């Protein structure tokens, strides 16, 4: 039976969640989504059904958070709770039904990023641990680790400095570069602390994309084990059809966790 970090949500049955929950964690711009975009087709080729999800992708709160962040108007506790709302909606409506249907769930960030970001903003760790105590314990957490010095060129040469990723709401400096450096240093320190507390598997994200992908493939394979062999040709075809991107909404409608 699957475990949570403490509390269990009403109506959530922890039995028969036979899929695998794999978390990719790491700071802004470290390459999490790039790696997930590589992992998903690779897993699907093995005949596994994959659901990928990430922050602000809930039906309920995703849009609201994005709009609120444009206005830079939310307080730190409000923002934390808005993200928690987004998270619980995805947990109940996407993640749990997919796990029940035997999917591999790849999640771009999990509760740890939310906790790290809130802690840098002065929100209490024990309070955050309580808020997220209903979260399912994942089967694996891969932490893409990088130093600030290696992170900066990556961000500069891709999308540039972002207001929130530079912690500008904390006013660490007028200068976006200085802010980014200070904020990300503080954030990485929190990630490192969480990596220890929750025993993340650390993946060095400094090398190029194929090298990191190679390491991740190996680590993910260890978690999933070998793909189950299909005894007959007919069944192999069926498995391939099932694996070709089954939309998560369809899963939600017949999963009992939606109750």
């Amino acid at each position, binding site marked *: 039976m699957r475990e949570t970090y403490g*509390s269990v*949500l*009403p109506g959530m049955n922890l039995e028969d969640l036979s899929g695998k929950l794999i978390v990719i964690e790491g700071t802004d711009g470290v390459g999490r989504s790039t790696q997930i975009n590589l992992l998903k087709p690779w897993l699907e080729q093995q005949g596994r059904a994959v659901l990928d999800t990430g922050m602000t992708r809930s039906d309920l*709160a995703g849009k609201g958070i994005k709009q609120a962040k444009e206005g830079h*108007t939310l*307080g730190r506790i409000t923002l934390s709770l808005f993200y928690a709302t987004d998270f619980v909606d995805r947990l*109940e409506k996407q993640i749990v039904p997919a796990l029940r249907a035997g999917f591999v769930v790849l999640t771009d960030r999990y509760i740890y990023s939310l906790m790290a970001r809130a802690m840098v903003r002065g929100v209490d760790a024990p309070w955050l641990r309580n808020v997220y105590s209903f979260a399912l314990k994942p089967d694996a957490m891969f932490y893409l680790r990088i130093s600030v010095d290696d992170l900066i060129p990556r961000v500069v040469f891709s999308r540039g400095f972002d207001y929130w990723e530079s912690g500008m709401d904390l006013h660490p400096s007028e200068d976006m570069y200085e802010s980014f450096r200070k904020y990300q240093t503080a954030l990485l320190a929190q990630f490192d602390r969480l990596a220890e507390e929750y025993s993340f598997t650390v993946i060095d994200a400094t090398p190029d994309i194929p090298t990191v992908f190679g390491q991740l493939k190996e680590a993910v394979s260890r978690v999933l084990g070998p793909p189950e062999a299909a005894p007959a040709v007919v069944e192999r075809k069926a498995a391939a059809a099932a694996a070709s991107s089954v939309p998560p909404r369809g899963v939600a409608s017949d999963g009992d966790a939606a109750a």
Partner: protein
Amino acid sequence: MKRYGEHRFPGKLFVVEGIDGSGKSTQLGLLHQWLQAEGYGTVFSEWNSSLLVRDTTKRGKKKRMLTPASFSLIHATDFADRTEHNIIPLLKAGAVVLCDRYIYTAFARDVVRGMDRQWVRELYSFAVKPTVAFYFRIPLEVALNRLRNGRNGIKFYEAGMDLGLSSDSEESFEIFQGRIIEEYEKIVPEYELTPVDATLPIEVQQAQMRQIVLARLAQAKRLRVAP
């Protein structure tokens, strides 16, 4: 991050709690008028907040996409926004702040929906402890009788229809409110709410409230309102 009971502000916070039909809003309205007439800078903190959070809450309710957990968290988000952007700045400025419903409403409602009692209390631990929290105690039947006349249709979540207690919204509402009263009765001693007998005449209840409020305002700096 300051926790419940740790905040120190010059302003005062008075809240009213109780089930629908207990008369708490009427009493708070009367208190508001009186405080203003007495010259206190009094602000009524509305139970709605920034449009953004409110839009999400509305959408969730309208489309009936809320579970007990997301219902709880979206309301906590909304309340956090009011705390950070409204209640705390007003109290810092020395205002008398009045709230119609506070965290105890969430404690009662969320627990009836099946959320863990301790989890909800910890969730709201960032809230400012009220100077006085009045609880308008009323037998369920009396409240229901009051509501039968003035009410035009109970909303889905208000009636606790999401709990599947009854397919009839009237009946569901009654069962739901009954359970809310049971939760309130646990909260009253735990959080030292001040009970008011809500079956007494309106003027008698109001006189009791004013007496209690006045005693707490005696040492407060009076925030002068521009004429």
